[in-house]
């Protein structure tokens, strides 16, 4: 069993597991931090941005976390854990010869589709500057200014995919439900478990009858909107692959939420606008729910909230129909029937409005001061670029970062100098080190595999030994492009005895509570499933004139007899011989046992602790009698 690690990003993993002749890709996250190397894509022409000293201004190029470590066309299945971890899917399934199946839950598929659609839309709706690739040449890259000069492996940066590629990639997705067991080629069974992080997010169990691998990706133990994490099903794993821990181990999500609300209220009261760069699904649902409770008490009842994204409407609508993927509290609402999320009410009462973009209705209905939720959190593309240009100059306005994926200082760099206030309250609900060590104590995996980043404290806080995984035995770290041999040996495999064979077995007890039976059977293997059936009886010999010849045929198949065990006790054996009419026995003691001389039959039987030797004349009836008498005292295996 091997693990190929194609991504070094701990929260955007991409690993390939080879297990029992199946090749399974676990997630394909897309690391978009490389867009920070590009200038923002403005929706309207910006004289300021175009005057900046720049080397290239083109659409966001994206860093694909994979390398030709293995042939992508050999991948049988891809298991997706949550919608953030599937953004590279078109790069894997399109133009690579991939012919496999992708497994994901319904919310993961639908929201993943929305996020991809949004990304494509962001890229395609702005007129493209000429694209350049020559700079990726190492010689030229060397001459470029920093930090681009120092960017590694720029040749893996790829152009954004098209909607056509997205549709084609997503057509390969097969939907699964939590705990549903999916058989892969009869060899392996995979099953998603609720991971509590986002709508439809899952951890995966990959198991055969005797081995169990748990794949833990972005998981959360906090009570937010998704169904709680299923921890008990992770128990008894041989290997647990651990990825997607919180990126903000020192920031408490609840505290951040409080800070978010108070900064928001403060800015609005002072007559400023609030900009929240965010993804179109996920934490935004919790932010809206929090604001729903907060608006009245903070006297913000008249402040308009805008959610601007090409998929804003779909995201809000979809969130309401996935009741079975929600936490219990929200699930029970739909039986009333009421929408599970309170943002339905915010929309109904006109407090929250959503628009596909800043063009069209929004420009005529837009009132200030207001709160705008919009993407993309990198501040390099999407409607957020426009608001940065619009509001950046005034110190009344505030930008509040809630998404943890990008460094807010890097994100803001091209907008400097900035008068706008910046608040950084990253909300990352994924497991922190404290929670994960408690979890691992609970589920007791034999081995833990994790990104190397988790095995040492972060570089900026090297003294914080609590910000790393400390386990016994220590976890097996992986880095990008490493190939790990997972340390467990398969020893057993499932086989089925057909009823007829099972009924014919004769068990005998060798020790108290332990019985054995000799099995002689014909094995059949089909679709990686094995069965044993009774040896078919040879067809009756055709009536032949030369009957005698038939007897002379040598035995057809080599049918070895069972192994024997035990010892033949002298006294009992002599008694048995006596019973069978063999009375003249001369017993002679030797170093290792006894020699019995059957005088009338002129036969020697050598009895020893671990062997019996019968030496006789060619007298088959006698020999077989003696054989059977000896066998009475022995175990057959």
């Amino acid at each position, binding site marked *: 069993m091997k693990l190929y690690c194609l991504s070094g990003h701990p929260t955007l993993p991409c690993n390939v597991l080879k297990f029992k002749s199946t090749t399974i890709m676990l997630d394909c996250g897309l690391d978009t931090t490389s867009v920070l190397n590009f200038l923002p894509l403005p929706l309207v022409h910006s004289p300021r941005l175009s005057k900046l000293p720049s080397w290239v201004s083109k659409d966001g190029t994206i860093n694909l976390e994979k390398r030709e470590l293995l042939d992508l066309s050999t991948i049988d299945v891809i298991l997706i854990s949550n919608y953030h971890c599937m953004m590279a899917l078109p790069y894997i399934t399109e133009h690579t010869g991939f012919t496999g199946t992708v497994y994901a839950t319904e919310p993961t598929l639908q929201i993943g589709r929305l996020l991809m659609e949004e990304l494509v839309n962001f890229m395609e709706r702005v007129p493209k500057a000429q694209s350049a690739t020559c700079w990726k040449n190492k010689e030229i890259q060397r001459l470029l200014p920093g930090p681009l000069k120092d960017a590694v492996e720029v040749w893996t940066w790829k152009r954004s995919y098209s909607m056509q590629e997205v549709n084609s990639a997503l057509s390969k997705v097969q939907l*699964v*439900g939590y*705990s*549903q067991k999916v058989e892969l080629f009869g060899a392996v069974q995979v099953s998603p478990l609720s991971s509590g992080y986002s709508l439809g997010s899952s951890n995966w169990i990959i198991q055969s009858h*005797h081995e169990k691998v748990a794949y833990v990706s972005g998981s959360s133990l906090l009570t937010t909107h998704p169904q709680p994490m299923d921890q008990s099903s992770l128990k008894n794993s041989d290997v647990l692959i651990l990825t997607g821990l919180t990126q903000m181990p020192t920031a408490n999500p609840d505290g951040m939420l409080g800070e978010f609300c108070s900064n928001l209220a403060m800015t609005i009261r002072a007559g400023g606008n609030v900009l929240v760069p965010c993804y179109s699904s996920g934490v935004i649902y919790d932010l809206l729910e929090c604001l729903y409770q907060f608006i009245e008490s903070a006297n913000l009842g008249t402040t308009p909230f805008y959610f601007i994204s090409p998929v804003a*409407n779909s995201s809000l*609508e979809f969130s309401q*129909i996935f009741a*079975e993927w929600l936490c219990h509290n929200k699930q029970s609402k*739909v039986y009333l*029937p009421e929408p*599970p999320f309170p943002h339905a009410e915010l929309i109904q009462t006109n407090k929250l409005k959503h628009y596909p973009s800043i063009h069209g209705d929004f420009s005529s209905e837009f009132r200030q001061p207001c709160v705008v939720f919009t993407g993309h959190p990198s501040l390099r593309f999407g409607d957020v670029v426009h608001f940065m240009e619009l509001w950046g100059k005034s110190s009344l306005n505030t930008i509040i970062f809630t998404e943890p994926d990008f460094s807010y200082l890097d994100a803001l760099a091209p907008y400097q100098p900035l008068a706008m206030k910046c608040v950084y309250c990253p909300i990352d609900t994924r497991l922190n080190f404290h929670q994960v060590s408690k979890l691992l104590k609970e589920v007791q995996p034999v081995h833990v595999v994790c990104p190397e980043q988790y095995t040492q404290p972060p570089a900026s806080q090297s003294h914080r030994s609590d910000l790393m995984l400390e386990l016994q035995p220590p976890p097996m770290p992986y880095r990008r492009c490493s190939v790990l041999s997972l340390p467990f040996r398969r*020893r*057993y*495999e*499932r*086989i*089925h*005895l*057909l*009823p007829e064979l*099972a009924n014919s*077995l004769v*068990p005998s007890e*060798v*020790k108290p509570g*332990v*019985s*054995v*039976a*000799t*099995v*002689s*059977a*014909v*094995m*059949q293997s089909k679709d990686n499933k*094995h069965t044993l059936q009774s040896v078919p009886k040879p067809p009756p010999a055709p009536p032949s004139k030369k009957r005698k010849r038939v007897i*002379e045929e*040598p*035995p057809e*198949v*080599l049918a*070895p*007899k069972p*192994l*024997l*065990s035990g010892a033949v006790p002298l006294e009992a054996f002599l008694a048995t011989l006596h019973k069978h009419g063999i009375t003249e026995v001369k017993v002679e003691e030797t170093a290792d046992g006894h020699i019995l001389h059957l005088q009338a039959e002129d036969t020697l039987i050598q009895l020893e602790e*671990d*062997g*019996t030797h*019968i*030496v*006789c*004349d*060619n007298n*088959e009836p006698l020999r077989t009698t003696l054989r059977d008498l*000896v066998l009475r005292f*022995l175990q057959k*295996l």
Partner: protein
Amino acid sequence: MPEIKVTPLGAGQDVGRSCILVSIGGKNIMLDCGMHMGFNDDVDDELEIKAYYAGHVLGAAMVHIKVGSESVVYTGDYNMTPDRHLGAAWIDKCRPDILISESTYATTIRDSKRCRERDFLKKVHETVERGGKVLIPVFALGRAQELCILLETFWERMNLKAPIYFSTGLTEKANHYYKLFITWTNQKIRKTFVQRNMFEFKHIKAFDRSYADNPGPMVVFATPGMLHAGQSLQIFKKWAGNDKNMVIMPGYCVQGTIGHKILNGQRKLEMEGRATLDVKLQVEYMSFSAHADAKGIMQLIRMAEPRNMLLVHGEAVKMEFLKGKIEQEFSINCYMPANGETETVSTNPSVPVDISLNLLKREMALGGPLPDPKKPRTMHGTLIMKENSLRLVSPEQALKELGLNEHQLRFTCRVQLQDPHSDPDTLHRIYTHLKSVLKGYTIQHLPDGTVMVESIVIKVSSSAEDTNTKVLLLSWSYQDEDLGSFLSTLLKKGLPSGLC
């Protein structure tokens, strides 16, 4: 012999009620409950339940129950043809020991749905055109929504003005349910729900009991569906006397209900008291009921490939007919127990065992890349039964694991032979003879003066008295018993003279 017992308590040869008791692998399960689809629920360590989409009403599911290697599928009500708001029932080739299917429409084979819909719309349209009123008795959820969507789109397309009413007052709430449970509807509705929710009707309004007396045409959906009580019956009584009006029964009616009576052509109905009601309005029956018809039931059997079939929900006579058809087409047993009658089906489960990978791999390697069906290879192993585990290992490994010593049983057989040759020549003659008789065995003539057949050793020495009498010593272990016994018998007969 393991067996599964099925006892219908309220669904045997009966329609409408439902309760079935199943005993499987030591578990008793009462059937009829709703659950999530595509979910395996491990109820306890041994019992596993999986739900499949049934397409009968929103949220309807078929359940697959598994204990060990025994399994039962219970369909509940299901529909094999997709409609305007639900998808078709589906199941994989799960090969259950018993498939328990409803058979409400055991002998019906319905014509194409499109024809039925066109027929329905034509009749409604004609009645409305001539100023008549149309009553459609329905149950609150399910067919009602289906027919609403049908009429809504028709009204829209034909630009009709006659009012359509929905009686229960539940409309709003029912439609809200549909909106929140949109993932259970069919693909088309799911795909477009963000832009346009199919359950927000423009033409269909809530009904008030006073509307029944309004003049002019109208269409009313009223509950319940079999005209046995409630609002649908009240409206029916009001409208029955006018031959311009029409009642359309879109589903099955149980015996004894007014719905059943008028469908059978009864034109005079006895009402409570001594009153009679003359039925003058037109009575139409159109099966829009979302149950599988005979064709659908057969289709499901083909999908699931059960070993036994058991029919519930239906009328005995019709079930008998379907039973015959199933037994003929699939050659499986088909049962149809009455209420309270227990049907026992014995199962023949195979026994799962853990085979040591060494043994399996050795066997696969010896078997070659492709199995030869004519010459099956026999595999030998030892099954160790300890506590609750069953493990199949090679005999050698079993000895080692159980801490047992091996006991060697050997035979040495003296065979006297008349052969006037020198000892080495005799040995060579034996070698040549065996070579010609034993095809497919390894036979070696070793330099130390022995012949080996597989692991059987043959030596030659001359008798002290007579050099022409040779004494052959054959020595073999118990593992080669068959071959050793054969050889000693063969050599006793002497060597053929033609050997060189």
